[in-house]
C-alpha cells in the first residue's frame, strides 16, 4: 500500500517541490515587498524616483557600473586562480599545521571589514611587513603604494580566497581514489592530468564559489573606498547607500538595487554556463589518502606559501595586534557580555533561519533536478541584495501596513536583523549542502521510494544523519556571518541591541583602536569556538580533516 502510493510521481513531486517553492516564495516576497516599498516611496524623497537625473548622471552611472563589474570580475578571477593553486596543494600534501590552516580558512570572510583592512595594511602598507622587509633587504626606504587596483585586488583577494580554497579542497576530497590510480596507469601526468582530469572535477566548485566571490565584490564598497586611493573608484553599492542616507531618495535606491540584481543575474547565467551549476559530489567523501601527491613538491610548496600568505597573513597581523592589545577591561565590562549574548542569540537564530531557507531550496533542487538551477539561482541572488536597501524597504513596507518596526518595541527590529542576516547566508548554505545532498538523493531516492520513506521521515532517517557535517558547516557559517555583521544592525538599532561589531565600531569611533583590536581578536576566537561547538553538537566532532570534512 505504502509502496504503491509512494511511487506515484505526482505525490512525490509535491513533497519534493513544496519546501523549495515555499522558501523561494518567501525570498521573492521579502525582496519584492522591500523593492516595491522603496520604488513607491519615491514621491516622499527630495528627489524624484529615477536612476539618473540628467544626461550627466546617466554617464556617471554607466561609469560606476563599468567599474563595479570590472573590479568584481578581476577580483573573482584572482580569487579563483589562487584558490585552485592553494586548494590543490592543500589537498595533495599532508604537513604539520594543515588542520590549523583548514580551520582558519573561513575566518577572513567574516572578519569585520575595518579590522581586516587594517590587517591588510599591516602586511602590505607603507609601514607594513613587506615594505619593512624590503627596506631592510635593499638597505633603503621603499615607497610602497598599494592604493588603487593593487589594493582593491589584495583586499578582495584576502577576504574571499580562503573560503573559495576550502571549496576547492572539498572538491578534491570528493574525487574517488581510483581516478588517480587510473590516471597513473594511463600515464597522464603533470599539466595534462590537471587539465584533463582534475579541472573537470573541481570546475563546479571553482565556478560556483567564484560566483559567490563575484557577487560579494559587486556589492563591496568599504574596502573599495579604503584601498581605491580616491573617489574615482565607486561602486553601485555606494550609489545605493548615498541615495538612502544622503539624499533620502528611496525610489532611486530601489532602482539601483534592481540594477544590481540584474547585473548579478547576468553573472549567475554566465557562471552556470561555464560549469558553475552546483552538482552533486561524484564520489566518496570520507577522508581518503590522496593518490596524487607524486612530484610537484616544489610547485606545491610555492602555492602553499603564496596562498597561505595571501589568505592568512593579514589575519595573523590582526591576531598579533589583538594579542598585544589590552584585554582586562573587556572581561570586566558588563556591556561586553550583553553584546556577546545578543550577538550570539541573533547569530544562532539567523544561522538557523539561513539553514532552514537554504535547506528547503536544496531539498527541492535535489528532489527535482529540472528545477535545480531555479532554486540555486533564487538562493544566489540574495548575495547582491543590498542589505541597506533591503532593510529600508522592509521598514517602509511595515510602516505602510501600520506596523512600526520601532514603536512595536525591539521585536520587529530583532526579527528584521535575524531575517536579513539569515537570508544573506543562504547562498553559502546552498553551496555547502547541495553537492552532498545531491549525491545522497541520487543514491538513496530509489531505495527510499521503494520502502515508502518520504517527507519528514525521509529527512530524519536518510538526509539528517548523512548531512550532519555539511549542515553543521552551513549553520556555523551562517552564525559567524551574522556575528560579524554590522550593516543591518545600524538601521534597526535600539538601546537594547548592543552587538559585538557595534561595540567594536563604537570603540573605533572613540579613538580606542587598541581596545577595538582586542574585540576583533575576540570575535575571531569566538568564530572558531562557534565552529567547534556547532560541529561538536551536530556533527559529533570537529572535522579532523577539514578538507574532505564536508560530507
Amino acid at each position, binding site marked *: 500500500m505504502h509502496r504503491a502510493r509512494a511511487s506515484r510521481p505526482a505525490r512525490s513531486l509535491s513533497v519534493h517541490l513544496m519546501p523549495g517553492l515555499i522558501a523561494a516564495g518567501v525570498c521573492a516576497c521579502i525582496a519584492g515587498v522591500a523593492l516595491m516599498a522603496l520604488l513607491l516611496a519615491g514621491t*516622499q*524623497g*527630495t528627489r524624484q524616483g529615477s536612476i539618473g537625473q540628467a544626461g550627466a548622471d546617466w554617464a556617471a552611472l554607466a561609469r560606476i557600473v563599468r567599474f563595479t563589474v570590472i573590479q568584481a570580475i578581476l577580483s573573482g578571477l584572482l580569487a579563483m586562480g589562487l584558490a585552485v593553486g592553494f586548494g590543490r596543494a592543500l589537498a595533495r600534501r599532508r604537513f604539520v599545521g594543515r588542520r590549523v590552516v583548514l580551520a582558519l580558512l573561513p575566518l577572513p570572510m567574516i572578519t569585520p571589514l*575595518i579590522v581586516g*583592512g*587594517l590587517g591588510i*595594511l*599591516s602586511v602590505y602598507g*607603507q*609601514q607594513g611587513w613587506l615594505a619593512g622587509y624590503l627596506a631592510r633587504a635593499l638597505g633603503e626606504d621603499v615607497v610602497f603604494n598599494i*592604493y588603487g587596483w593593487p589594493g582593491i585586488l589584495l583586499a578582495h583577494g584576502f577576504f574571499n580566497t580562503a573560503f573559495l580554497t576550502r571549496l576547492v579542497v572539498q572538491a578534491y576530497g570528493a574525487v574517488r581514489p581510483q581516478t588517480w590510480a587510473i590516471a597513473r596507469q594511463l600515464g597522464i601526468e603533470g599539466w595534462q592530468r590537471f587539465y584533463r582530469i582534475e579541472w573537470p572535477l573541481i570546475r563546479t566548485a571553482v565556478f560556483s564559489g567564484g560566483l559567490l566571490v563575484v557577487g560579494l565584490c559587486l556589492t563591496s*564598497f*568599504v574596502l573599495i*573606498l*579604503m*584601498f581605491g*586611493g*580616491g*573617489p*574615482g573608484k565607486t561602486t553601485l553599492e*555606494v550609489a545605493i547607500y*548615498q541615495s*538612502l*542616507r*544622503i539624499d*533620502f531618495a*528611496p525610489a532611486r535606491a530601489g532602482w539601483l538595487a534592481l540594477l544590481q540584481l540584474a547585473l548579478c543575474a547576468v553573472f549567475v547565467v554566465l557562471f552556470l554556463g561555464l560549469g558553475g551549476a552546483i552538482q552533486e559530489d561524484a564520489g566518496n567523501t570520507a577522508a581518503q589518502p590522496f593518490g596524487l601527491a607524486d612530484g610537484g613538491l616544489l610547485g606545491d610548496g610555492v602555492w602553499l606559501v603564496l596562498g597561505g600568505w595571501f589568505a592568512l597573513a593579514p589575519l595573523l597581523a590582526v591576531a598579533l595586534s589583538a594579542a598585544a592589545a589590552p584585554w582586562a577591561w573587556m572581561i570586566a*565590562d558588563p556591556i561586553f557580555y550583553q553584546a556577546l549574548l*545578543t550577538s550570539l*542569540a541573533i547569530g544562532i537564530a539567523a544561522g538557523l533561519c539561513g539553514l532552514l531557507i537554504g535547506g528547503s531550496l536544496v531539498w527541492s533542487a535535489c528532489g527535482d533536478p529540472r528545477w535545480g538551477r531555479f532554486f540555486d539561482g533564487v538562493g544566489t541572488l540574495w548575495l547582491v541584495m543590498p542589505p541597506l536597501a533591503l532593510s*529600508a524597504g522592509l*521598514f*517602509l513596507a511595515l510602516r505602510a501596513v501600520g506596523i*512600526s*518596526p*520601532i*514603536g512595536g*518595541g*525591539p*521585536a520587529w527590529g*530583532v*526579527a528584521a536583523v535575524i531575517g536579513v542576516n539569515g537570508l544573506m547566508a543562504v547562498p553559502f548554505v546552498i553551496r555547502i549542502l547541495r553537492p552532498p545532498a545531491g549525491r545522497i538523493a541520487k543514491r538513496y531516492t530509489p531505495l527510499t521510494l521503494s520502502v515508502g520513506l518520504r517527507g519528514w521521515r525521509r529527512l530524519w532517517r536518510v538526509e539528517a544523519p548523512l548531512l550532519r557535517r555539511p549542515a553543521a558547516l552551513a549553520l556555523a557559517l551562517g552564525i559567524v556571518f551574522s556575528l560579524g555583521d554590522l550593516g543591518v544592525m*545600524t538601521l534597526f*538599532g*535600539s*538601546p*537594547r*541591541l548592543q552587538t559585538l561589531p557595534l*561595540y567594536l*565600531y*563604537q*570603540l*573605533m*569611533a*572613540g*579613538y*580606542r*583602536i587598541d581596545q*577595538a583590536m582586542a574585540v576583533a581578536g575576540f570575535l575571531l576566537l569566538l568564530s572558531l569556538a562557534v565552529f567547534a561547538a556547532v560541529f561538536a*553538537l551536530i556533527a559529533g566532532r570537529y572535522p579532523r580533516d577539514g578538507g574532505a570534512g564536508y560530507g
Partner: protein
Amino acid sequence: MRIFSIFFALWFVLTLSPRAVLATPGVLTIYAGSYFASQWGPGPQIKAAFETQCDCTVEIIAAEGGLARLQLEGEASPADVIMNIPIHQITQAKASGLLKAHELMIGNLALPIDWRDRVFVPWDWSYLAFVYDRTVIENPPTSLRSLIEDDHEFSFVFPDPNFSTTGMDLLAWIQAVYPGDQATRAWQQLRPKVRTVTKGWSEAYGMFTNGEVPMVVSYSTSPAYHLIADESDRYAAAAFSEGHYVTLEVAARTTQSDDPALAHDFLAFILTPAFQEIIPTANWSYPVIDVPLPAAFDQLIAPTRSLYVPPDQLAREKQAWLMRWRQAMD
C-alpha cells in the same frame, strides 16, 4: 551544553518580548550617533544627569543615518530629540517638516561663530585640523596653502565627504580658502598627497594611528584624547594661518514627539554646565558654553581665525563642491 542552550533561548525570548517605546509618558527618546550613545561616549553620563532633574527616563538610541532614519520612520518615529543631523543637512531637515522650533532664548554661546537658528541648538564644537604624528613629521606645514601648494614627502587620509561630515567639512574648508573654481586647482595639487579616501572617520583615524599615514583630517581636539587617555603627546594638530574651519554638532526636537515640553527641557539642558562639562573628555570636543576645561586642552592649538560656511550656502553649493572634488581627484 544544554544549560547554555536554555539560557540562550531565554535570553532570546526576553530580547524579543515586545516593549512599547512609543508614546510612553515620561520617556525621552534621543537619536544620536553610535559613539555618542555608547558607554565611552557622553550618552550615559548625559542620560544620568538629565534624569536627576526631569522625572523621566532617557533612552539614547544609536541611530546611524540621522535625518534619513527620521525620514524613513516618519510619523512612527519614537524620537523626541535628534542629535546627529550634520550641519550640511540642516536646511534639508528643516524643509522636511519633521522638526519643531526649539523656542529657547540662545544668548552668549562660547562659539567662534555667531549661531542663530530657530530649530537647532548647538551642543559641541571643534576646529577641523590636520592631525599629524610628531615622530614622523617634524615640521608640519603652517598654512593650508602651504600644505596644498608646496611639495611634501608625507601623505594623508581623510573620510569621503559623501559619507562623512568630517569629509564634507574639509570640502567646505578648502572652498573657504579657495573660493569657487579655484578649489579645482587646489584639489588637483592636493591629489598626490592624498593616500586614500575612506568611508568613515574611524577607518581614516585607524590608518593614522596604525602608522600607515603620518597625517589625517580630524579635529583640533583629537590630540586631547591622546594627551589625557594615553598620556602621549605624539599626535598634534597643525596650526594653519588662514584659520580653521569650525565644525559643530546640533540638536533639535521632532514634530511628532509625544512630549514636546520634555524635549524642550532637554534642549535647554544642553546649554547648561551639567551637560557641557561632560563634553570635553567624553566627546573630545569643546563645550558650547564657558565651563572649565581639563588642563590638557591648554596644549591644543588655538586658531585666531575661524572659517565657516553658513548652512544655507552649504546646502546650496555642496553638490557642486562634491562634483568638483570628484572630478579634480579622479
